[in-house]
């Protein structure tokens, strides 16, 4: 009996160890297989040329990824610039100012927003944001814009990542001990002074972590952005130009035209780029968070 129990325990342990190793190997497998799939094009062209050339003519064997890389960054950057202030202000409001009933109203709202699938944000974007930009906003700055622009992608993406940011930040703010805010208030600080000098300061690392998570979601978001950003291969010179982010490139072309030489490899290279961006981002954020915590150890 005792032996059986011990044997069961041991078996379970080995199975679990196997799964744990599998998880790490799975990550490696994704990275390596993307890399090897991308290897032909890296070998043939030069990595530097691939990354910095803007010349994208797959039929002539020219693969410059710069337009796609820049598009991805621009769209994500606009999204985070719009989303960050909104999310920080709203989460502070919910945490420190709002009454219970307002909080109760917002909880399902944030849930709702984060539950809506990307495709629906895309639908909403094409219906409202794109015409708004084409007819109202862009006309004030440029002569003509279709509305399918960097800005449209950024706005739709911002609306998508706001709920993610809010739900994490509300958690971050909530985890600040009440004694700490009480200490500040009892010294006669106003609420806003307490928010500015104590709460925000205490939450720096949490806010950074949330931002990183939202940014990596933004980099990889495919369908919603694809539907509103125009998908024209060019380096966008203003936010009213159309753009073509990496995920959209893959989604639009993968599975077709794979007979073209190096084309599949080129698309795999873009997937590999996204993968690397996510890994770098995670590593970098972990490193900075560690530094912050070590320096201030709050």
């Amino acid at each position: 009996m005792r032996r059986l129990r011990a044997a069961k325990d041991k078996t379970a342990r080995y199975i679990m160890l196997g799964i744990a190793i599998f998880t790490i190997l799975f990550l490696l497998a994704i990275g390596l297989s993307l890399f090897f799939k991308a290897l032909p094009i890296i070998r043939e062209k030069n990595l530097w040329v691939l990354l910095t050339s803007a010349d994208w003519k797959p039929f002539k064997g020219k693969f410059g990824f710069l337009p796609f890389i820049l598009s991805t960054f621009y769209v994500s950057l606009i999204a985070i610039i719009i989303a960050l202030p909104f999310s920080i202000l709203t989460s502070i409001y919910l945490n420190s100012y709002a009454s219970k009933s307002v909080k109760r109203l917002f909880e399902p709202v944030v849930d709702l927003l984060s539950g809506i699938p990307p495709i629906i944000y895309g639908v909403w974007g094409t219906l409202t944001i794109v015409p708004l930009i084409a007819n109202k906003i862009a006309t004030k700055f440029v002569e003509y814009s279709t509305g399918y622009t960097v800005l449209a992608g950024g706005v739709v993406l911002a609306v998508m990542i706001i709920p993610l940011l809010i739900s994490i930040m509300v958690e971050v703010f909530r985890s600040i001990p009440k004694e700490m805010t009480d200490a500040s208030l009892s010294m006669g600080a106003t609420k806003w002074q307490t928010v500015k000098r104590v709460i925000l300061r205490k939450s720096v690392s949490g806010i950074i972590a949330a931002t990183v998570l939202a940014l990596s979601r933004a980099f990889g978001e495919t369908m919603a952005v694809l539907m509103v950003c125009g998908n024209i291969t060019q380096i966008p010179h203003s936010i009213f130009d159309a753009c073509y982010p990496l995920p959209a490139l893959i989604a639009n072309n993968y599975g077709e035209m794979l007979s073209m030489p190096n084309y599949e490899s080129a698309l795999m290279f873009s997937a590999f780029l996204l993968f690397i961006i996510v890994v770098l981002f995670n590593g970098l954020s972990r490193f900075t968070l560690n530094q912050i915590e070590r320096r201030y150890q709050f």
Partner: protein
Amino acid sequence: MKHLEEKIFKVIMICAAMIILGVLVYIIATVFYRGLPSLTLDMITKLPGGGFYLGKEGGVLNAIVGSLYIIIGSLAISILISVPLVMYINFYLPAKSIFSSLIRFSLDILFGIPSIVYGAFGFALMIFLGVRASLLGGILTVAMLIMPIMMRSFDEITRLLSHELPDALLSLGATKYEMVKVIMKQLMPGLVTAILLAIGRGIGDAATVLFTAGYTDNIPASLNQPAATLPLSIFFQLGSPVEEVQNRAYASAIILTVIILILSFSARYFSSRFSKNKI
């Protein structure tokens, strides 16, 4: 002076919150306004008819069933892998071991990998294995996407569990395996939350199934037949030049939103209900 600053920022904060609230209402209203007139019983009970994409009659039952098949299959796989893994890093490995932080770091990265990359990887894998776009392919790829989501949220909930229960069980002479079986009962509500979160993400994602599940107007009868999914169905209908079909896309969007809303509300309901009788 400092009260003025306080007031200004309070106004700004309320504005920010109101705008976010407004945008949500706007999104929902837009979709419902366009979609509701086309949302008929046929939409959810019939397969697409011959000229469905040209505005003739039919429904999106194929996509509803396909999405459900895929999510159920991928859930089964990811539960089978997530639960043992989370138990292992929390109860078998020492609290601050390098191995467990390595696993958690991998999970963070897996969590951050975009769904399109999973889609591309899944497709490449399928070509390598000689499988064509099918229900099986969709299930496997969606499983890759939702596994890290499930593992991470379940891990976070498990970490909150106090050490008293495990210690008490071990001191009774239970083996770790027996201990974990008891703890799992305690963690059930957490697992439910994690599962529902994963469903919400998995069922709405189009990029993973774009290449791997294929598309069909029929309900797949076996694992190696292609399967339609709701997000793709919306995408294709939206691409049609016929306005009637476009409106149906919004109706399908309503169906998808409602499915997800039901799931996310029940997640909240379950987690709040179960947390009451948790230790």
